[in-house]
């Protein structure tokens, strides 16, 4: 159990997808301006990441690896993710309208979110199902944490007097750099906490 907890904590804090691995930067910069859009987007990401891992793992293990077709991984995974996102959108719209209203508008953006394809490819390299699931949920939660923290930082940034040429995107990137610096403080935390 400790091992699973370590995977989860690593994915959320020390190996944060956005701030340490640079995956999913586009939504991180684009949708983090308001807390509620940031939350909606990251909830959709957690959902799709977990689902994509659950679907691609058996496809990879029983279809691709068995038939020596590993080289098709990239094509198959991106297609599976695209199809899955469409399917989730349709199912949610039909059966769970409240959830659709909360997450639906973010779903089309997720197809081309590199964090989702990234987590699936990274998981395949590791290769165990339960570990993969914990890793993807952790990665999604880490994405959510980064988005929520950063939307708070950005709302403060709004009222700041920023030098002319840093206005707009440059100051946002520099703020992201400082948030990312604070995440470096977690280095060694997982090992220390769990005594690994």
């Amino acid at each position, binding site marked *: 159990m400790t091992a699973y907890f370590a995977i989860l904590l690593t994915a959320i804090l020390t190996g944060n997808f956005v701030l340490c691995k640079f995956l999913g930067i586009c939504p991180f910069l684009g949708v983090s301006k308001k807390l509620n859009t940031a939350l909606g987007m990251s909830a959709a990401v957690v959902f799709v990441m977990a689902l994509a891992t659950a679907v691609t793992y058996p496809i990879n293990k029983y279809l691709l690896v068995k038939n020596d077709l590993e080289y098709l991984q990239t094509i198959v995974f991106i297609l599976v993710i695209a199809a899955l996102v469409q399917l989730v959108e349709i199912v949610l719209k039909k059966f769970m309208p409240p959830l659709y209203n909360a997450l639906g508008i973010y779903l089309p953006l997720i197809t081309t979110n590199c964090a989702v394809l990234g987590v699936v490819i990274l998981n395949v390299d590791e290769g165990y199902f339960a570990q993969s699931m914990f890793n993807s949920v952790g990665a999604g939660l880490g994405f959510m944490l980064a988005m929520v923290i950063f939307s708070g930082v950005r709302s403060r940034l709004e009222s700041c007097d920023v030098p002319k040429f840093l206005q707009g995107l440059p100051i946002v*990137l520099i703020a992201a750099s400082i948030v990312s610096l604070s995440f470096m403080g977690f280095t060694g935390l997982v090992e220390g906490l769990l005594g690994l």
Partner: protein
Amino acid sequence: MAEKKVSLGKEFTKGLIKENPVLRLVLGTCPTLAVSTSIVNALGMGVSAMIVLICSNIVISLLRKIIPSKVRIPVYIVIIASFVTIVQMLVKAFVPALDAALGVYLPLIVVNCIILGRAEAFAGKHAVIASAVDGVGMGVGFTLALCCMAAIREVLGAGTFLAGAQDLLVLFGDNVLGGFNGFTLIKEGSALSPMTVFILAPGGFFTFGLLMACANRIAESRGKPKAELKGCEACPMAGSCSIRADGGACEDGKEEASA
């Protein structure tokens, strides 16, 4: 779709500066931040993405009249993914050290918004040669921006310049250029030590922010608007995205632009 007459020279040069994909259009930020820790990695990534971009632009442009517009995004993704797989295999076979260095970012070229963005914004509407030239221009612009960032980060963060050049030169045989493997600017044991933070994640964001500020400064001195995160105009998913109508992320972009 109406085809406009385009000047090839203009299509090429616009990708370099005026519409530089990284610094002006703010596309492809993930690989820009992730692989710009050394110039050699940046160059490898830039060239790989450029090859994919040119090939996919050509094929998409050739097929633009056959692809039904309703399913064009999935079709584009499959075409791009195929070329990414080819490039991935070539890199694995001929430049294995680069494959190890780029890791997961090599297959992630598939979701690089520069490529899908150009397919949607340009190749799907223009003739083959113009699309290929657009691909070359955008690819070179991407590589230039990446190398610019990598040069700053490598010199400040690792104290080296072009370190690991043999990883790429291996393409041309063993020990080309007399086994040149980069310069060490800060020798070990000297009083100076490199600022490691620049090759770590925070340094990436910081360098990118400052570079973009410089690009804005230059653009303004020439009377051009500064770069904004035009998530929606440049985003290939803009057509099917309903945040636009709901006034989420895109509304923010407009506010920034008008402010």
